[in-house]
């Protein structure tokens, strides 16, 4: 997996434009995205959670700041220290590492987070994570 910073975005989905909006914020600043995982957290409010791995380039911070003040975005968390661990589900079991194969599903889990920096509409907070 390419090196970068793992980001967690929480926001309210209305239609897929929500995802375009998140991705576009990085695109406009030429910040590459290497991986994304999107899911609906809450059926009632349509709260969505996006994890993504973005290039750790000088514009990264600007992208985060801009995203954190975008309509529909609740908050943006930078998961400091996070590394993506690779796993493969072959239909029967989950094993560590990437195993390409027909029907295999490769997924990633952010781990080793040591600090979460949260940005939301001009507010910034930091939380040290003791466990890994």
């Amino acid at each position, binding site marked *: 997996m390419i090196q970068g910073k793992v980001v967690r975005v929480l926001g309210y989905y209305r*239609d897929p*434009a929500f995802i375009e909006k998140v991705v*576009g914020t990085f695109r406009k600043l030429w910040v590459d995205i290497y991986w994304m995982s999107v899911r609906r957290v809450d059926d009632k409010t349509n709260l969505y959670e996006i994890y993504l791995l973005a290039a750790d380039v000088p514009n990264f*911070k600007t992208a985060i*700041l801009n995203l*954190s003040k975008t*309509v529909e975005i609740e908050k943006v968390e930078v998961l400091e220290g996070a590394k993506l661990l690779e796993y493969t589900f072959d239909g029967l079991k989950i094993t560590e590492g990437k195993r390409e194969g027909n029907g295999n599903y490769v997924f990633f889990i952010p781990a080793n987070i040591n600090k979460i920096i949260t940005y939301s509409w*001009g507010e910034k907070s930091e939380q040290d994570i003791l466990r890994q």
Partner: protein
Amino acid sequence: MPKGSRIIVDALKREGVKVIFGIPGLSNMYMYDAFYEDVNNGELRHILMKHEQAAAHAADGFARASGFPGVCTATSGPGATNLVTGLITAYWDSSPVVAITGQVPRSSIGKMAFQEADVVGIMQHITKYTIQIKNIREIPLWIKNAFYVASSGRPGPVVVDIPRDIMLESIDNVEWPDKPYVPGYREFRTVIDPVKLKRAAELLVESEKPVILVGTGVIWSMATKEVLELAEMLMAPMVSTFPGKSAIPNDHPLYFGSMGYYGRVEANKAVLESDVLLIVGSRLSDRTFTSYNEIEELKKKIIMINIDPTDSEKAFTIDIAMYGDAKIILRELIKAVSLIAKKKDRSGWYRKVKEWQEYYSKFYYTEDHYSMKPWKILKVIRNTIPRDAIVTTGVGEHQMWAEVFWEVLEPRTFLSSTGMGTMGFGFPAAIGAKVARPDKVVVDLDGDGSFLMTGNNLATAVDEKIPVISVIFDNRTLGLVRQVQELFLGNRIVGVDFGPSPDFVKYAESFGAAGFNAETYEELEKALKEAMTLDIPSVIRVPVPREELALPTLPPGAKLSQAIVSDPRKSS
């Protein structure tokens, strides 16, 4: 059972809308049908613009002149896409505009239908927010939300895209929301931090060479009085960003002009040489600070008051950042400065800045006997129109002359596309401003190139009896590009010069407007005086030599300290 189209109109009226700038077409015409009675009984005014870009600029001009969101509408497809330039212009200058676009029916969306455009895809990255209505019940809330989002926090344009089949649907009961509700949107908080206020006050009181930089945020928070009070308490010179000119009476003895790329050298110099810089309501754009490193290297103390906290993290180190409404924070800062109760004599610093102003004036205010000089044209206009007249500009050399030489005397009376630099802004923005403030004289300072981009809206101004006055600095060239070609690209002049067409007097008259040719300052004054008595728009053509430069300027990519103040062609 009201139809969707009626609900749209009622929702707009509930937000206080009295004027809509737009053009009807297949997908928004049901909204027009719904406001037929409202227009005929005078509750709503519709102004038929001649291009949707102009509708957006007019709504923008309305908003900037009044402080209330301007509203524009366009049909689907080309109508909506024509709004793009106007909306991004409003976004870059933090102006609250609400655009209602018609959309093809829901069943046709995404199928390359006739006059279909992906409005959300196109608009969401060039507006503060874009929403597509999915069903009729959403209309009341989302129109309320649109006005809330447009006018709160950092203001900006919002698009509400409504499929036309929804306009034709009906419902029994309309639920009108009391309050907006936008998931994932919050206004920036105003944070009163006593520790920061005390530190900021101490820095300012102890400073030898303070400067206050005023930006657009002062206009939107109506904090002019507070800025002046603080400046006078500290005897601190004030400079502004280009759009921030409109926040401060430019004849105030502590004001030294707008700084930046085409700003006054003394204003740039005051900022560079200050020991404490207080920035109020500015996003620190690359037009104001052409090199962030230049500021960083000077290691001056910088205090920033801004509605958007993220702006302070993008440019250079801010020592004390205070976030929120400028008026509220300035009031607190004034109290904190008063508490320290210490006066410092800064007359030496003031005199120094004043001396720079006097020194550079020798370069600005030059005269010759064979052509009209831009500074003097602007002086004649300033001396002829009322103090509270509203002035708009197009984009080009004339705009830069206005930046340096136009004296804004009342807040909200200078409207210019400063962030996006959109040619064609001036005239339709003047229409919008005049509609918002019919009691004011409204003058569009324009260039020949810029005016021709939206000048066809003279027809609208004539039909709607909107007597705005356009003064065209006619140099038969795209002067700002020409200047760069001449000075910095080896005099390779290409693709900029105009021929003799059009004759601006005949052009104006062909629309039913008044046309004037002012070839002397006396003729200009006479034409302005006559134009102010008319109930039709006027175009006053003022010839300016093609070779006239917009100075001061910077070489491309240069620092503020590298300003060119005199004509480099003469020195060579």
